[in-house]
């Protein structure tokens, strides 16, 4: 993907979001699960963003996850709250692999913004990488429990991964179908749904069956991790910018706050963190967009770990440097921290990601092989 197209995407996202996003709408929502803002969702459908990662055969723009990640970085900076990754990118990774009629139909609906999709694969906390499911598909109905599902709308469609006699299947299920119950927990910008399926009947035969279904889910998770890394990196950068603005203006003890090394040096450390985070997600996005098995790439896990850590650290430091003001709900700075909590925990917290990073990197890559020859 050329840098020029990325620049255009970024610029248009910045323009659009600067006009659209108002932080006020995110304050005072503590404990309240948030759904899509359908006007905003329609607007970004209009801009073509929802189909970025779908092939043209599936009504998409035929770009890849790296383009989506460019958007997500801007989303992070601007605190854009729509569930783009869970509600567009992850379903895209699944639909793109299916040639069932319903897949084309859903893809079109996804791109147009009139079908609200999400992917439900995870069943236990900390197990986003588990490829085995207690949820069962018996050939006609589906039964089990899915957790930490984002972007679930009451009139939406959930793509559910389940075990069957032919291995993993992915089926498309209307949320309104009989046998579907759910509860939502609030996150900073959305929710985690806990879904109980009890003999629910899907819209059509499975979209994917067997190894191809497993591969699609692993790809969806890897894509989502890279995009979430970009978003976290954007969150951290937006947070740093807001903080440097603040400490450049606020005065205490007759000096600008930034004149104190206890402030300026922490800003410098935040900068280093943000730049590290930025370097690693961009690299991972480029690698993942051309990889057959993106889940095997160590850089994906490194990106998720780094960006999660950096966004949290930056958010906390920023709250501290804003003083008492930083602790108020009216000050946007806390929204960055809260968003960081959401995206750093979803899809794997930093320590867990570093373990997978180490496992995937085979360690040797990191070391120099000079001593062998």
């Amino acid at each position, binding site marked *: 993907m050329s840098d020029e197209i990325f620049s255009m995407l970024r610029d248009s996202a910045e323009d659009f979001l600067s006009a659209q996003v108002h932080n006020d709408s995110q304050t005072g929502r503590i404990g309240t699960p948030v759904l899509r803002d359908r006007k905003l969702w329609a607007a970004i459908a209009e801009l073509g963003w929802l189909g970025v990662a779908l092939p043209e055969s599936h009504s998409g723009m035929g770009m890849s996850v790296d383009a989506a990640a460019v958007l997500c970085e801007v989303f992070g900076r601007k605190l854009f709250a729509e569930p783009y990754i869970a509600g567009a990118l992850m379903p895209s990774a699944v639909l793109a692999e299916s040639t069932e009629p319903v897949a084309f139909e859903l893809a079109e609906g996804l791109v147009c913004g009139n079908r609200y999709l999400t992917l439900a694969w995870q069943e236990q906390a900390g197990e*986003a990488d588990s490829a085995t499911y207690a949820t069962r598909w018996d050939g006609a109905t589906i039964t089990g429990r899915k957790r930490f599902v984002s972007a679930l709308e009451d009139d939406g469609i959930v793509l559910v991964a389940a075990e069957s006699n032919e291995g993993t299947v992915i089926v498309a299920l209307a949320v309104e179908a009989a046998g579907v119950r759910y509860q939502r927990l609030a996150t900073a910008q959305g929710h985690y749904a806990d879904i109980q399926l009890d003999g629910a009947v899907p819209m059509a035969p499975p979209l994917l069956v067997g190894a191809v279904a497993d591969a699609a889910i692993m790809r969806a998770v890897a894509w989502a991790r890279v995009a979430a890394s970009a978003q976290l990196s954007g969150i951290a950068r937006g947070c740093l910018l807001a903080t440097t603005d603040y400490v450049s203006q606020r005065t205490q003890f007759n000096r600008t706050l930034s004149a104190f090394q206890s402030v300026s040096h922490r800003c410098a450390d935040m900068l280093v963190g943000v730049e590290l985070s930025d370097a690693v997600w961009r690299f991972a996005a480029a690698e993942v967009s051309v990889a057959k098995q993106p889940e095997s790439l160590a850089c994906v896990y490194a990106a998720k770990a780094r960006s999660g850590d950096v966004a949290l650290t930056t958010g906390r430091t920023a709250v501290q440097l804003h003083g008492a003001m930083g602790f108020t709900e009216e000050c946007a700075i806390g929204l960055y921290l809260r968003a960081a*909590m959401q995206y750093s925990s979803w899809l794997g917290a930093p320590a867990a990601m570093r373990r997978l990073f180490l496992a995937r990197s085979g360690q040797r890559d990191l070391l120099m092989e000079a001593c062998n020859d």
Partner: protein
Amino acid sequence: MTDSNWSSRHDDRNQLSDEEFRQQLRLFLQANFPREWRQDFHRPFRRLRGPEQKQWLRILNDNGWRAPAWPRHFGGMGLSFRKQLIYHEELEHAGVARVIDLGDSQLGPTLILLGNEQQQQLYLPKILNCEHIWCQGYSEPNAGSDLASLRCSAVLQGDDFVVNGQKIWTTHANDATHIFTLVRTGKFEKKQQGISFLLIDLNTPGITIRPINNLAGEDEFCEVFFDDVPVPKTNLVGEIDQGWRVAKSLLGYERVWIGSPALVSKALELSRQLIELRELDVDCGARDRYAELCADLHDYKLLYTRICNQISDSGREPGPEVSMLKLYASELLQRVTEFNVQAAAEWGGVVGDTVIGDTLTDLHWQYMMARPVTIFAGANEVQRDILAKAVLRLPT
């Protein structure tokens, strides 16, 4: 001060041995503190407010367990510092929700030390019986860590001061009946001078209170606006323009109480619960991180006890070394709450109540409630400056 109203209604518990004292209080709390107000995994740092706070303080008062630091002839318990420590330990141990009782902890001692007899007779009994609930008006939008820059003014006109200006971060002003303030009454070269300590009834016309929601979703902080508010000049405590010293005398004690390891203990109790719930006992990496926090608390408790004992033994006011307590306890509390969020995996992203296993918790609440402790009562940056200057004697 020999008026019979002021005589003590209860036994002098300061005469008890430490162990007897501890036992009596423990039994009292078991029998009297309402179970539903206990700190728990959902609200490990629970605070009582409004009617609940009043109800509990009155139970304490009726049973002679109120105002541990006040002399007995003012209606307090007259406890030694060591017994005050035990008092706080036992409240923590029993999971008694905290109260922000500034009438007891701040205004009372100030009036006892520096108020006149009239002020003492007027205010102290009403603090004890909760007829008056006090809040503290020190900080202003441009006077936070740099408190001496405050500008809210009081100008004497006849028998009244007329107060104009704004206070901010006034905790629970929306529950209070009165506010004690630092106001500017004069301009001097040294900005710490010209500040006076003034008592204000919140019912006075011209006062507006606006609560501010915090990141944990609570409206505990308020802005208080003063617009030509008349305050009788008899409400001045201490000398005019000398209010800085009045306020400063209590700062050391405030840092000792803020340095209490109690909140950390509560947060770490939640860590342990999360480790069990998520079956991380077998995860040596998580255990190492938990062990570090446990060791930090263990060692900190020893330091805290030692410094408190030194204060107690010496009979002097806390010195600048108590900045260590505020500093370390607040940062450790944050580290523990961060561990909890990480240990909870995806649940760490939930904003609000969640049930893990069968345990109701709110990880976002404990995480956010741990944020301001490094800011209030002197930001930690200021505490480090104090340690460098006043303890290590480093030149600036």
